[in-house]
């Protein structure tokens, strides 16, 4: 019998933290729209609890039978701003409470989709939803919210950018930890299985299963074998490893979809770190040859890693989607936290890194005194990187109310802790207050 591949697989799972980060069921709520808000919420609750009634059970079965840890079971729904717009409701907090109730009933970890898409402008529901976000996040623990403020095709809604800065400050005034449930996107994707940014896109099927894999530890371990070799060898080694990791995602997604009788959507080829030792994206960059993440060369190493992960993963699964790339959430990566604390990684370098990896400024704590306009400025910069480079970018910052550089915000569990990072004190007030809309870039006109 071929024992080597078996041992290697077991080692990947047992020692290198290879796991399925999430099985996320996307559920369309378009058939729940009703002019009566109360009735709409009842339909939403019924549809979610009916569609996903076996999600946790099936994930647990797969974990037991195949010995693959499945960390999160999640649900993503159609952006609530679209669903609630037909109701006369002036405040959408009740919809978030309905989502929370359904998530608790099902035992899922998180439910995403308290969302609005305003890259080109606001429809009636969008303003109400955005205004409801602070209260919705304060009164729930499993609901995740996202707002898309820009895209390559539509440009950037600077009014929304300004508003989101104020909303984030408002959330933080109540409890900074709630900010981790809100992502501000540019080029948000319809089939992202990862939170807090998951929602079920408008062009998606009625229900779908998407899978997010993980495994920075596996890549790090594989790279230890090629120390001192050329960067070409590093790229090949990452591709091979990403292939195996992604095969597991494809395998688990196929079985989950079969057992749940729901179509299998995509595998998201992301390297998602956790604060556990040996589960860090920063450690991969350091294994490539940087003394610390943040050193000159970090952006290049990350670009290679991100590209090689995709190349390896693409052939391993039928449909690739979601964000697919390396995540760099500061608080969720032990080595990133160390680099920030040691003064080797700053916001500006992280911003450069977001130009070559998936997502953006993620899980970053900033001083409580940071102005709403500064946060909006950070959002505008990220959205611009996304818009011009035709990629998804996002901002998930946590203004640490009452805290300053040198302090830490504790999130607990998989979300880790975040050292408060310095933000450039020069203000973008007049720019943000102009409002309006940044036009779509010239290269968006492809027709």
């Amino acid at each position, binding site marked *: *019998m071929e*024992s080597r*591949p*078996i*041992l*290697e*697989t*077991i080692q990947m799972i047992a020692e290198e933290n290879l796991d399925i980060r999430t099985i996320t069921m996307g559920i369309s709520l378009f058939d729940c729209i009703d002019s009566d808000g109360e009735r709409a919420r009842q339909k939403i609750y019924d549809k979610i609890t009916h569609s996903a009634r076996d999600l946790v059970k099936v994930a647990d079965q797969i974990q*037991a*039978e*195949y*010995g*693959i840890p499945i960390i999160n079971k999640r649900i993503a729904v159609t952006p609530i701003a679209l669903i609630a717009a037909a109701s006369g409701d002036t405040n959408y907090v009740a919809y978030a409470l309905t989502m929370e109730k359904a998530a608790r009933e099902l035992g899922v970890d998180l439910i995403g989709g308290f969302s609005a898409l305003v890259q080109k402008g606001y429809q009636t529901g969008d303003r109400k939803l955005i205004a409801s976000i602070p209260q919705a996040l304060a009164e729930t623990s499993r609901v995740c919210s996202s707002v898309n403020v820009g895209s390559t095709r539509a440009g950037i809604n600077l009014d929304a950018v300004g508003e989101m800065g104020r909303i984030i400050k408002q959330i933080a005034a109540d409890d900074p930890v709630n900010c981790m449930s809100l992502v501000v996107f540019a080029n948000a994707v319809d089939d992202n299985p990862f939170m807090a940014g998951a929602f079920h896109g408008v062009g998606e099927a009625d229900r779908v299963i998407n899978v997010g894999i993980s495994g920075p530890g596996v890549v790090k371990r594989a790279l230890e074998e090629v120390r001192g070799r050329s960067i070409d060898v590093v790229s090949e080694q990452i591709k091979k490893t990403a292939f*195996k990791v992604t*095969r*597991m995602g*494809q*395998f688990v997604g196929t079985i989950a979809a079969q057992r749940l009788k729901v179509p299998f959507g995509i595998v998201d080829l992301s390297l998602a770190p956790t604060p556990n030792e040996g589960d860090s994206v920063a450690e991969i960059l350091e294994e490539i040859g940087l003394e610390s993440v943040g050193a000159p060369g970090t952006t290049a190493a990350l670009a290679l890693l991100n590209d090689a992960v995709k190349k390896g993963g693409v052939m391993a699964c039928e449909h690739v989607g979601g964000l697919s790339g390396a995540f760099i959430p500061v608080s969720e990566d032990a080595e990133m936290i160390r680099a920030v604390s040691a003064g080797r990684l700053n916001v500006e370098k992280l911003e450069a890194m977001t130009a070559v990896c998936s997502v953006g400024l993620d899980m970053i704590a900033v001083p409580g005194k940071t102005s709403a306009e500064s946060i909006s400025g950070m959002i505008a910069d990220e959205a611009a990187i996304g818009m011009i480079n035709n990629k998804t970018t996002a901002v998930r910052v946590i203004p640490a109310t009452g805290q300053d550089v040198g302090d830490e915000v504790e999130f607990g569990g998989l979300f880790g802790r975040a050292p408060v990072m310095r933000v450039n004190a020069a203000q973008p007030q007049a720019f943000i207050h102009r409002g309006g809309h940044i036009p779509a870039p010239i290269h968006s006109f492809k027709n």
Partner: protein
Amino acid sequence: MKAIITVVGQDQVGIVARVANELAKLNVNIVDMSQTLMDHNFTMMLSGEWDDQQLSFADAKTAMERLETASGLTIRIQRQAVFDAIQKL
């Protein structure tokens, strides 16, 4: 149902017998096996096959977990398909 059972632990007399005996009681047919000593750690891999109608995976897993507790060995049981999916094109 096909599953891979891996056993790791301090080398001692009777490991193979204990595991094989438990599998025999469950009516699990051993179709292949390999073993080796790595740093005084005994490592064994068994490929087992059984009739789904007579034994559920959950029951086989429970029996292996009981043996794990009683023997002090680390015993894993996983359906075989996962290894094929990851390692074979």
